[in-house]
């Protein structure tokens, strides 16, 4: 086996710079002559702008320029776009109100962008912003997801009657109704998927520089996908032609979805640096992140399951109202539709599913993908409903799951909701998780807890998700404006070391390590001689970036394909040098060998020959540098069972997670250490949603959870350490045999935690976040 190859927990290449304080995040970058920007934001949830007077601000000390929406419009800068079309039940595309980067006559949420002030220092920019006089005509606000489409609500956008973005029915409505009519039992549940603020720890930032000589804009920005940013800013926002715009996503301090999207600040900073012909830097503070980062989740839903007398699922019906906020963010329409309804089968053979999703506008920040994006919402709803079904049928939650699992010999399995799962063994994961969690021993532990005045509960969550986003043809059919393949270039330098250029982006995932492991495994080049390059449109070829656990499953395969091309070319070069037939050359562990002899040359020597082709195969191009693209045939389908055990103090409502066990099927693991870290982080994101995090607006549209004092993030003392194991299956649709692991924890954990709490209290349901107050109230009701 190659040292540091696939399957080894290699320590990360990227760690040293972060540990010694030499990371290079956007706000760490400073350039000569830079100015500082501050955005004046709407203090109102919903208001007309009657007038804006910038004269005092423009004259304020140190202020370089003040711009409003009119200035952007005068320069022909386009509005922010949403890249995925959903067809509404009237046959029309979803309603897409204009989303100007700086407001045009109206503001639609607190934090909406009104003006940019550019000054010599940030303090001067802030002082200047205070001198802008805006005359607002305050309007009533729409803030409740469930009520947004009601007739008595004020209308936010002219193009969207009743604040409806789309109504998207999907599935066999009549078939489901018939199955419900003749079912032995129907279980029903109403639930809320609480709104989250994604909260990567690094706030968003942008630094724009304009070169008056080359007429090129360089935009450093906190992005998960620099090329997507460049494409959108060029093609749709008319910021600059693609070849005159360089987007750099340097070190990025976490994304979790929030840094996929093209935001107003980035566009305005990019435009303004050309306008003032000086570098412009903007760094958001945490409150701005709460106000104006895209939020996540925010559904209100009703779910019903029809069953026969054995608890077999016959049909499921789901009605969902999803809040998209004030405007459509980049991927927003796709999240509560395709990424949600197509996952409603979960791990089960439910033959009939009908879903109706009503997506609404409200006077709140735009809502888009947040770790898991649609799949956590689907999984939470389904796994909660399954527990309610178990309760109604008087079955153990593990038993009802077992009775309905897709059997392992049924793969590939076509679900009634589009997805065709390529591989899985759900019983194996459940069994392993039950051993890991000592499920059998739970009743004794529960009894022991009662003796101490506590209530113990145990909760299961058997999830499946669709990752490796995504087959271009499939997403194209669904209305995506882009293809979701990935690209790679693997370049040998003449001295034999290797640079790997990937279109994905790493913001915590450790690609610089994992991708080097792929290459060392395949080409036999020492791990330390491989450098992974990403995040700069001037360095890497076009690629789609990182989200949806796609980097390894899609981007990794592109790298492997480029390596294969190098091996093919290398055989020709080696054959010539070793005076053998090309067909007789074998490649292993970095050496090209003439079969059956000890004649060999290593890949570094081959690379040197390719760059110094003095004696070289006739007609073969010099150079040892190959690129490849990979467009997957299918999504990948990570799955697993997580089991959470809690202890509830009914006097205080405090929930303690006493044990958490996760068994996942991610296919093959390239770096188990990194995978385990992804699982841990995902679980805590999910625990945060289940126990702590809840984003709230008041009825006027004021965000009342806009700091870490009002919005509870999970901290080290809120969670335990975790027991993590795997039950892998081999996915035939992925050439590397990998599935993706970044979102699993955030998807699996919320229902596992809530199922444990409802089990502890003997109640049907409790909404998230299950804060001490909510749990205490529920416990009083249950007592």
């Amino acid at each position: 086996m190659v040292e540091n190859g696939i399957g080894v927990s290699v320590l990360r290449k990227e760690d040293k710079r972060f540990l010694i304080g030499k990371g290079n995040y956007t706000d760490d970058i400073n350039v000569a002559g830079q100015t500082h920007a501050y955005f004046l934001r709407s203090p109102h949830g919903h208001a007309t702008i009657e007038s804006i007077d910038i004269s005092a601000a423009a004259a304020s000390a140190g202020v370089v320029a003040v711009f409003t929406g009119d200035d952007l419009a005068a320069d022909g800068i386009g509005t922010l776009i949403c890249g995925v079309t959903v067809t509404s039940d009237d046959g029309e595309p979803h309603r897409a109100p204009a989303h100007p980067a700086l407001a045009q006559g109206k503001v639609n949420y607190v934090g909406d962008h009104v003006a940019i002030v550019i000054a010599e220092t940030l303090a001067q920019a802030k002082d200047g912003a205070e001198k802008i006089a805006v005359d607002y005509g305050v309007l009533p606000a729409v803030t409740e997801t469930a009520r947004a489409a009601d007739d008595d609500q004020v209308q936010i956008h002219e193009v969207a009657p009743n604040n409806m973005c789309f109504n998207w029915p999907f599935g066999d409505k009549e078939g489901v109704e018939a199955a419900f009519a003749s079912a032995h039992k129907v279980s029903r549940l109403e639930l809320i998927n609480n709104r989250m603020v994604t909260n990567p720890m690094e706030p968003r930032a942008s630094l724009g520089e304009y070169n008056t000589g080359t007429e090129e804009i360089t935009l450093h920005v906190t992005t998960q996908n620099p090329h997507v940013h460049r494409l959108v800013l060029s093609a749709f926002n008319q910021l600059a032609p693609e070849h005159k715009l360089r987007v750099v996503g340097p070190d990025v301090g976490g994304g979790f979805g929030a840094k996929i999207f093209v935001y107003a600040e980035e566009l305005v900073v990019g435009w303004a640096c050309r306008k003032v012909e000086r570098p412009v830097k903007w760094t958001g503070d945490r409150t701005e992140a709460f106000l104006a980062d895209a939020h996540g989740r925010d559904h209100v839903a009703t779910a019903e399951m029809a069953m026969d007398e054995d608890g077999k699922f016959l049909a499921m019906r789901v009605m969902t109202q999803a809040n998209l906020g004030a405007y459509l963010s980049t991927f927003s329409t796709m999240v509560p539709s395709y990424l949600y309804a197509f996952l409603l089968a979960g791990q089960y053979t439910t033959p009939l599913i009908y879903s109706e999703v009503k997506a609404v506008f409200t006077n709140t920040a735009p809502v888009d993908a947040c770790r898991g994006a649609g799949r956590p919402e689907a999984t939470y709803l389904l796994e909660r409903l399954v527990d309610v079904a178990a309760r109604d049928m008087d079955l153990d939650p593990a038993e009802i799951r077992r009775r309905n699992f897709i059997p392992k010999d049924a793969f590939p399995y076509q679900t009634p909701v589009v997805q065709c799962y390529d591989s899985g063994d759900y019983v194996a994961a459940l069994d392993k998780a039950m051993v890991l969690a000592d499920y059998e021993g739970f009743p004794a532990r529960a009894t022991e807890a009662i003796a101490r005045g506590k209530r113990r509960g145990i909760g299961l969550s058997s999830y499946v998700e669709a990752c490796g986003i995504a087959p271009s043809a499939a997403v194209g059919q669904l209305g995506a404006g882009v293809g979701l393949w990935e690209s790679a270039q693997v370049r040998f330098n003449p001295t034999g070391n290797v640079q790997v250029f990937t279109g994905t982006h790493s913001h915590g995932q450790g690609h610089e390590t994992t991708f080097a492991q792929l290459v060392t495994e395949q080409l036999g080049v020492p791990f330390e001689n491989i450098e992974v390059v990403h995040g700069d449109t001037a360095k890497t070829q076009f690629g789609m970036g990182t989200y949806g656990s796609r980097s390894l499953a899609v981007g990794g395969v592109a790298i492997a394909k480029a390596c294969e091309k190098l091996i093919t070319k290398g055989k020709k070069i080696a054959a010539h040098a070793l005076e053998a037939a090309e067909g007789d050359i074998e490649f292993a562990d970095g050496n090209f060998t003439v079969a059956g002899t000890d004649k060999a040359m290593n890949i570094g020597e081959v690379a040197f020959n390719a760059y110094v082709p003095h004696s070289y195969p006739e007609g073969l191009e010099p150079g040892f540098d190959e690129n490849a693209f990979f467009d997957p045939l299918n999504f990948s389908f990570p799955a697993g069972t997580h089991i959470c055990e809690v202890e509830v103090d009914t006097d205080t409502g405090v929930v303690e997670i006493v044990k958490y066990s996760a068994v996942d099927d991610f296919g093959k693991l390239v770096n188990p250490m990194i995978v385990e870290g992804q699982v841990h982080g995902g679980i805590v994101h999910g625990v945060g949603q289940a126990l702590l995090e809840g984003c709230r607006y008041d009825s006027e549209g004021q965000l009342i959870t806009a700091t870490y004092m009002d919005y509870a993030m999970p901290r080290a003392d809120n969670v335990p350490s975790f027991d993590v194991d795997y039950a892998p299956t081999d996915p035939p649709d992925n050439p590397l045999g990998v599935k993706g692991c970044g979102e699993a924890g955030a998807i699996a954990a919320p229902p596992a935690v809530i199922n444990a709490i409802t089990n502890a209290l003997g109640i049907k349901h409790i909404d998230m976040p299950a804060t001490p107050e909510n749990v205490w109230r529920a416990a009083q009701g249950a007592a």
Partner: protein
Amino acid sequence: MPIVNINVNGKLVSAEVEGRTLLVQFLRENLRLTGTHVGCDTSQCGACVVHVDGKSVKACTMLAVMADACEVTTIEGLANNGSMHPMQQAFMDNHGLQCGFCTPGMVMTALDIVNRNGNDLDDSTVRKELEGNICRCTGYHNIVKSVKAGAKTMGE
């Protein structure tokens, strides 16, 4: 504007600062020591933790003028002759970081935990002590492991 004299990572720095300049701004902007991060505006996240006269402090909670005549150590001041401090090494060995943004604050806090609690730490002590530092990436599991391991090595 007031002048401050601060010993930062063993070097004496004299500079004019505005009264409203926070210590973290002074480090990041005046001295370009960008390893200390800003993750919030309410002193909740701990990304900005440095040591002032040997004690951990949230550098967003202190004015630069308050650090006058003090000794400040930042994440950049820990490595010795190019080799990482045992606590930094422990974070690397135990995968105690992902995106790296919370990491400098975590490491500086970890050292303070060791200073006050010794080298033999249990999980619950570490978890309680880390209450002022938020990480969105790691789920804390490997940070707790890192702090315990680093503490142990420091005692050897």
